[in-house]
């Protein structure tokens, strides 16, 4: 499994959620990122953003560039981008985690491979195609973008929830049952806490996937920092283009970092 602590990926499904999954894999290996990475990443982002801000406040810009790089506009675009990311991720969580739990219960267990295969197939489509097709079908706008982002990001969370729960040592589950815990209490007190690291790795993968893909939301008028890049390209204004690229990259790194921190914070104590 790509996004799971299982070392290098060798199985077929991995190939599907290529990019962000590979990102998730690298840091969800047995060796966890050290504090240097946890500290270094936001520092790096801060340095880059501050350097950019200094350049922005002193640069000699023409009127179009000034309008595009207006501070309040930049703030709005960043907020839009964050909103896309957060809303999509929350919806993904709300669907994928319960679905993953349901698919590991005895009644639905047999359907799990089918559902994962289906989610995998969806992931094989190029995301830009997915966004455009949904826009043709449902029209432009925020919620269409959210739908596309959710469809794209649901797989890592779903699969990691299933794999995480399946990875819980069955003797521990039986120990819990044998001690007189109900099914629900075994799920809540043993299975889910033990699966948290794997599920969180999936969530971070989804976050990275969503924040990157949200850049494309501008194509269907759903806002976000991607707009700076398209405007920059269309008007051939490099300052706008580069500013957009830097800000998007910085935001993605920051979200990735937040995901890492979340992984660390939610990891139950007592697990390595």
């Amino acid at each position, binding site marked *: 499994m790509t996004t799971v602590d299982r070392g290098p990926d060798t199985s077929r499904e*991995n190939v599907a959620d290529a990019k962000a999954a*590979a990102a998730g894999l690298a840091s969800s*290996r047995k060796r966890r990122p050290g504090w240097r990475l946890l500290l270094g990443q936001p520092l790096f982002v801060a340095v880059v953003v501050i350097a950019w801000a200094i350049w922005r406040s002193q640069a000699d810009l023409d009127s179009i560039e000034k309008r595009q790089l207006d501070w309040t506009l930049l703030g709005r675009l960043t907020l839009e981008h964050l909103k896309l990311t957060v809303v999509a991720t929350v919806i993904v969580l709300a669907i994928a985690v319960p679905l993953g739990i349901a698919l590991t219960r005895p009644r639905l267990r047999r359907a799990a491979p089918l559902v994962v295969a289906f989610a995998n197939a969806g992931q094989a489509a190029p995301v*830009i*195609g997915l966004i455009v097709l949904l*826009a*043709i079908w449902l029209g432009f706008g925020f919620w269409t973008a959210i739908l596309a982002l959710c469809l794209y990001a649901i797989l890592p969370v779903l699969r990691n929830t299933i794999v995480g729960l399946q990875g819980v040592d069955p003797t521990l589950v039986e120990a819990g049952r044998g001690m007189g815990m109900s099914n629900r209490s075994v799920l809540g007190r043993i299975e889910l806490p033990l699966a948290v690291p794997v599920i969180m790795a999936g969530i971070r993968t989804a976050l990275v996937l969503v924040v990157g893909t949200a850049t494309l939301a501008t*194509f269907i008028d759903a806002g976000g920092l991607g707009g700076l890049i398209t405007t920059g390209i269309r008007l051939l204004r490099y300052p706008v283009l580069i500013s957009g690229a830097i800000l998007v*990259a910085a935001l993605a790194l920051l979200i*990735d970092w937040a995901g890492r921190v979340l992984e660390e914070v939610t990891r139950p104590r007592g697990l390595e």
Partner: protein
Amino acid sequence: MWDYIAERHAQLLYQSYQHLSLVIQCVLLATVLAVGLAVFVHRNPRIAALAGGVSAIGLTIPSFALLGLLIPLAGIGTATSVIAVTFYATLPILRNAVVGLAGVDSTLIESARGMGMGAVRTLLRVELPLAWPVILAGVRVSAQMSMGIAAIAAYVLGPGLGSFIFTGLTQIGGKNALNSALVGTLGVVLLALILDALLLLAGRLTTSRGIRV
């Protein structure tokens, strides 16, 4: 849709060929780069870990942002497209190559050296063949990813099927918008499946039977 395809089959075939050719060339280049880099760093665990970290961070950067950053350097068109796809293609292979090489049993290396094989020969005859399945898994991830990035790169006039998708986008409301976007999207999916099958086949042929799963 069939009419649409029939009407444009020449263009469609050409763009499919362009898309596939772009991806294959970039992935080949990325494989050479990544394996070379991995061979270079894998003996030093700290640099190897760094390579892993760089790979993870690099994959975090949205491809559209990188395309934006490359335009001032490489201009609009194929060059930007190639650089971006190669960049992303390199990262998963690099990561897997580092992991794969690190996973080779050190006693095997020792025994190879003990038999009088030099460092280069050991690398070529023992380490790389044993790490190859893991590297190849990275190549498959890479190829799949490159398909999607190449599609996005069509926005900056890179070659390939992405152009159909963007045509669909600009012609929204028009009668062929859906056809165009659908053909582009499904075309990429199809190419991805074909390439993955080819890579699997290549894997069968290039992996020693002794370590085939």
